[in-house]
């Protein structure tokens, strides 16, 4: 009787170990496919660029860096900031309407003021601003990897604008 129990325990533990190891290994091998789908390098455009000197900008919206880098340089109320051109609704690209002084997204009609704050359409929040800094040479460096969002109160962050 005692011997049989031991056998049973032995039997049980091998089976358990086997299944646990097998499940873990299979999960591990499946996760290979998951990790495999995230490339280690990407070939997308640079996330950092130099956007001339602060004196090159006049008050208002500057579209020079829109096509190349997806950024509007906006000078408003003594602040120069880099505004993302990606609609916060579904990622379409709004157009700047100089006459109406607003950005209008063609996909679902979201509208934004020059500051990037949304006021119409389905956009859930204002456009994002990117990190801007001055290089030692006095050029503006725009870093798109760091975003500043209005609703989080980040537009007061000194990295989100350049005082001009």
């Amino acid at each position, binding site marked *: 009787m005692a011997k049989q129990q031991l056998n049973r325990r032995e039997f049980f533990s091998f089976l358990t170990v086997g299944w646990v190891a097998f499940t873990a290994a299979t999960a591990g091998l499946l996760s290979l496919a*998951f990790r495999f*789908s*995230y*490339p280690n390098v*990407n*070939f*997308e455009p640079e996330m950092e660029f130099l956007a001339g000197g602060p004196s090159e900008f006049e008050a208002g919206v500057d579209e020079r860096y829109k096509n190349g880098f997806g950024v509007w340089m906006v000078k408003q109320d003594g602040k120069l900031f880099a505004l993302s051109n990606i609609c916060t609704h*579904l*990622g*379409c690209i709004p157009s700047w309407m100089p006459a109406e002084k607003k950005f209008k997204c063609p*996909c679902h009609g979201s509208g934004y003021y020059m500051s990037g704050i949304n006021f119409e359409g389905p956009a859930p929040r204002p456009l994002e601003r990117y990190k801007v800094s001055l290089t030692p040479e006095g050029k503006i460096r725009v870093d798109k990897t760091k975003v500043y969002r209005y609703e*989080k109160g980040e537009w007061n962050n000194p990295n989100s604008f350049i005082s001009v």
Partner: protein
Amino acid sequence: MSAKGLADKVRDTQVWKSIFRHGPPNNSRNRAAVVAGNVFLHLHPIKLKKSGVQLGYTWCMGGLTFFIFLALTVTGVLLMFYYRPTAEYAFNDIIALREHVPLGIMREIHRWGAHAMVITVWLHMYRVFMTGSYKPPREFNWGVGVILLVLTMLLSFTGYLLPWDQLAIWAITVGSNMAKATPFAGHGGPGAALAQIGDFVMVSDKNDVRFQLLAGRFVGEPALLRFYILHCVFIPLVVGVLIAVHFWRVRKDGGISAPL
């Protein structure tokens, strides 16, 4: 020699007999044999309730879905001869189909077939619901069917990108941006903002589900390749396996639904 005589002669050859192991299906025995002895017809039962062949009852939508799936497989494989999934060539290859590829109408058949398949699969589900055919013992097969419906739409969705025109990339942009909003797994979704330690952003546009789908931060060439693979290989394989399960269960769960 009369036509009938010729037919009989052909039927009598060893070649014919080696392929068809039974006589013409004009008696019970042979009608059973023709279905049971043919690997393709073998999907069918040998006999079924009369309601199972009544269009007013079945709408034939499931059968049409399967037929369109096969048609799409054939046309799709053919289209692959002329199509290269790169930003460089994709669009031009589609133009080529319209302009100079012999019978480039294959693309139209494929595209409209894809739309038709979405419709038939929806209507199939609609009919199954209206006749209450999901009820026991067919609960599991209904579930398989729902998954097949989702996969059908994903197949169509992934194929939508391949022409690499404005319609394609913006439809996929709109669609894939929804993945961005997945709670906790997409960088624009609820909770993503919480997964951050210092400057270590755990959910960002470089590592969320949308990035995995597109292999990039936006719909670009890597996304085209990924969608191509999903569209041509991965999803069809899964669909094929599930169709087998689905049909198998139709037979095992009592044939085409009918009143109990």
